[in-house]
């Protein structure tokens, strides 16, 4: 049985102590990925004054009395702030900390970007597997939405749920595809004009019906099992596309064709996709170059930009009546080392942090922790609290915990992985 087949067996919105009775609409997930590896000592995991750790304080200008690093507590969450370099961090937590859970000390078990990204997003170290955004979108959307999930970053993993998910393109090329009348011009001297043909609605409907009939015939030709699954992907893709196209004009309005992507524009797109009920999950890139090997001082600006964007995102979600139903997960694939290297940058560190935002969350909490060597402390997976008899929170437990929190049974996707239930406690 393919994993997708299991969808039918997985009860949607399985009872969760936090969610039951609280939902006022369909569950949605927005994953914001800080690709490159953020330095959590600049924000989520205060280590000011800890011997051996060079946090944000090493960048302070002694001549500027305002340029100081402090630990402020927002609704019970200690956060490192700096009014000069990262004012948006304090603003964000001042506004939203009550809906926030910070997760520290997630063991990633690697220090290379690609494998760490796969681990944090999928909960698996290897294999062709879907990420939590794709799984959640597929299960939460089912057949109700044209797409289960959308990868607006290019960073995601579709696995065997590829037929449920869509991509936007690095520079929003999806706009070109959804709007048949739009096109880049042909090169000089090239003997073609675009669009060469604009099918009518009836043309496309007839073509789709023709293709569907042909696929149904082909489906049986090479037996069951894999053969049927491949053809099922074809049919499902056609079906989803057919439901997506009528929403094209509204989607295209949110796409900035040919422009370098920004967090703000892709977050806007994500909210529109939610409003139109195109998808139930979206994966975004923070679009900031967090991999600061050569100059770690750049982390200040990236944090300020990210949290400025998150603050606007949360306000927009609220304004657009999506806050009640949307879980926002902000994560990076790894952390950065305790001290700076010879280029005053920092290298990779295999313990990650994350941020979960949800109005229905028992917020204002820090789940998990690190010691003064920036290693995760053991926790009790069931409660999420520190427990010397427990184990460090692994990337697989974390991914399973996210799915569980969203009401998606993680077992079919992360078979045998103990579920971290910190978010639900």
């Amino acid at each position, binding site marked *: 049985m393919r994993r997708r087949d299991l969808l039918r067996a997985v009860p949607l919105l399985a009872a969760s102590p936090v969610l039951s009775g609280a939902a006022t609409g369909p569950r949605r997930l927005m994953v914001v990925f800080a690709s490159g590896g953020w330095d959590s000592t600049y924000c989520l995991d205060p280590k000011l004054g800890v011997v051996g750790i060079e946090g944000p304080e090493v960048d302070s200008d002694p001549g500027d009395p305002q340029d100081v690093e402090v630990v402020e507590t927002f609704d019970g969450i200690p956060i490192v702030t700096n009014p000069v370099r990262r004012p948006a961090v304090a603003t964000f937590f001042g506004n939203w900390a009550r809906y926030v859970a910070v997760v520290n000390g997630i063991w990633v078990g690697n220090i290379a970007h690609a494998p760490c990204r796969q681990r944090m997003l999928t909960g698996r170290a290897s294999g062709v597997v879907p990420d939590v955004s794709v799984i959640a979108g597929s299960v939460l959307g089912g057949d109700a939405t044209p797409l289960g999930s959308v990868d607006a*970053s290019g960073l995601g993993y579709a696995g065997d749920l*590829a037929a449920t998910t*869509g991509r936007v393109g690095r520079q929003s090329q999806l706009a070109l595809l959804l709007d048949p009348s739009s096109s880049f011009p*042909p090169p000089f001297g090239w003997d*073609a004009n675009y669009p060469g043909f604009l099918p009518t609605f*009836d043309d496309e409907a007839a*073509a789709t019906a023709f293709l569907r009939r042909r696929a149904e015939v082909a489906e049986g030709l090479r037996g069951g*099992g894999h053969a049927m699954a491949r053809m099922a992907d074809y049919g499902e893709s056609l079906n989803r596309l057919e439901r997506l196209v009528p929403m094209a004009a509204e989607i295209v309005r949110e796409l900035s064709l040919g422009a370098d992507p920004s967090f703000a524009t892709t977050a806007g797109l994500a909210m529109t996709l939610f409003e139109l009920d195109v998808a139930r999950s979206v994966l975004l890139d923070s679009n900031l170059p967090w991999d600061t090997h050569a100059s770690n001082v750049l982390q200040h600006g990236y944090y300020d930009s990210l949290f400025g964007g998150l603050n606007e995102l949360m306000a927009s979600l609220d304004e657009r009546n999506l806050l009640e139903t949307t879980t926002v997960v902000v994560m990076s694939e790894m952390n950065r080392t305790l001290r700076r*290297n010879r280029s005053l940058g920092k290298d990779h560190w295999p313990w990650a942090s994350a941020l979960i935002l949800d109005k229905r969350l028992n917020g204002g909490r820090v789940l998990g922790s690190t010691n003064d060597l920036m290693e995760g402390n053991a926790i009790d997976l069931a409660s999420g609290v520190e427990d010397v008899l427990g184990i460090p929170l692994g990337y697989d437990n974390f991914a399973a915990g996210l799915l569980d929190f969203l009401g998606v049974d993680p077992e079919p996707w992360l078979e045998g992985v103990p579920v971290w239930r910190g978010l639900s406690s």
Partner: protein
Amino acid sequence: MWLLFAALSCDDPPVATSLTSDERVNRVSMAIRGVRPSADELEVVRHGGDAALSALVDGWLASDAFGATIRDLHNELFLLRSDLVPMLPEEGPLVGTEVADRYASTTESALRLVEDIVLGGRPYTEIVTATDFRGDRILANVYGLEFDDDGEDLQAMTWMDGRPMAGVLSDSEMWRRHVSNGSNFHRGRAAMVAQALLCDDFEDRDVVVEGGVDLTNELLVAEMVATQPSCVGCHQTLDPLAGFFWGFKEQLMGLAVTQAYREGCHWPNDLELPPPDGGLPEDFCYPLRLFAPEHELGWMDWGLREPGYYGESASGLDELGKRIAEDPRFWDCTTRRFASFFRQQDIDELNVADVARWRKAYLDSGFDARELVRAVVLDAEFVDPGDGPLSWLAVRPEAHARAIEQLTGFRWRAAPADQGCLENCWRDVDLLTTDLYGFRAMAGGVDSTYVLRATNTMTPTRALVHMRAGYESAAYVVKADLAAAVGERRLLGDWETAAPPTLTRRTIASLYERILGERIDPDGAEADAAFALFDGTRDVSGPEAGWTLLTATLLRDARMEYY
């Protein structure tokens, strides 16, 4: 009785039928070349059977299209075709060149070397021992290589900066793409080589940093990786491999070249500051100085392990190449990488006995990769897959683009730069095989920067890409065909506006055979359905629109998407 019949018909999966002769020819042709077989080729195998298919494969393995497939395979392995990062700028000797040409010249050099070795029938092991490669004027200008302006566009060339010659291991673009960051000391490059060529995946392993080892203290790290038990397991082999790459700069990005030109390509003499780490500004102006022999022993400065190959002492990239070429793990890994690509399976999913069989064919041929490909694609399971994992294979974006061009003469090219671009503008982009403006990763391919693994099945976005590509290419070929003389047409044969229905049906049957490799009865039910699709639009919008709609629809048929 009725209940039993109902139960059987609902619950029993369909039984797989063997592939027809046409389906086999199409499958092998698409796998090897990414293009459809001709009507003649289909006919030859119908009569000649497996022997005729084998003979056809001989020719296909010598074709340019197979060479393109070999480049595609190695791009998925080496991840070189990335247009999402800033390209080398139009400066100095590159003024007047197009960014698309600079992209192709640089990213294809290693891929072309592999193609030349494979198509030339040379031992595949030469990809890590070759002493020269082919490049164009742009590549020569970028790296200061000899080039005869009166000669061919692509000429044999070799590195002139003292680097040891070791095929793709010496290729500059490999190490511009696979950088070394911070205190990585080329370990990432070593891991990439081990993973791609030896199937030894260091990055798959768990990394346990015990006791708070400070990874930024290079000297401490050097000591720990040699003594700490949790580190030694990987680093005793990884670090000596990394030791071979010290002659290369850690990185040399396009933006650094732009910056160097802004600074006048020299380090000001009046500055008493030391030059920036990694070299002088002049290193970042053309010809780029990516390799410096004097840095090859840099590992000594950090107390790291000396270069070595899995416990054997060695020095220099050329020796690394020789060790890899002689390593049975390389032979085995090559077998698995090729099989994985053609069968669209993870290397871990391959059957051990199958791998042994293909490996034997490869070794018996003296490392001729063409024989390896032949063994894989003529394997019984490949040509008669039943309902197993090979039942339907998905066409890759690059192959899809080739098939579309072969059938319609159309490449979906565009000039996005005309829309307000001022610097390093792309004025001629192939939309199906690139990502900055195009749709390669959206259609299931890799972009080599973010999307590192192909998606070998249908997706909604891919369906959308192919829908648009289908309409554009169909419009192009139908318009051209209807304007051309009968004998010069690609798809529409001798059809004329006043043609009787019988001729229209014959043309439809011919379209099926040409595009899908499928023979249908011109008077049968399938032709009826196609005729209805054609006729519905012809009645409203005319025959050109009717043919365009039908052709575009066949170009995204399930049998075009899968083979």
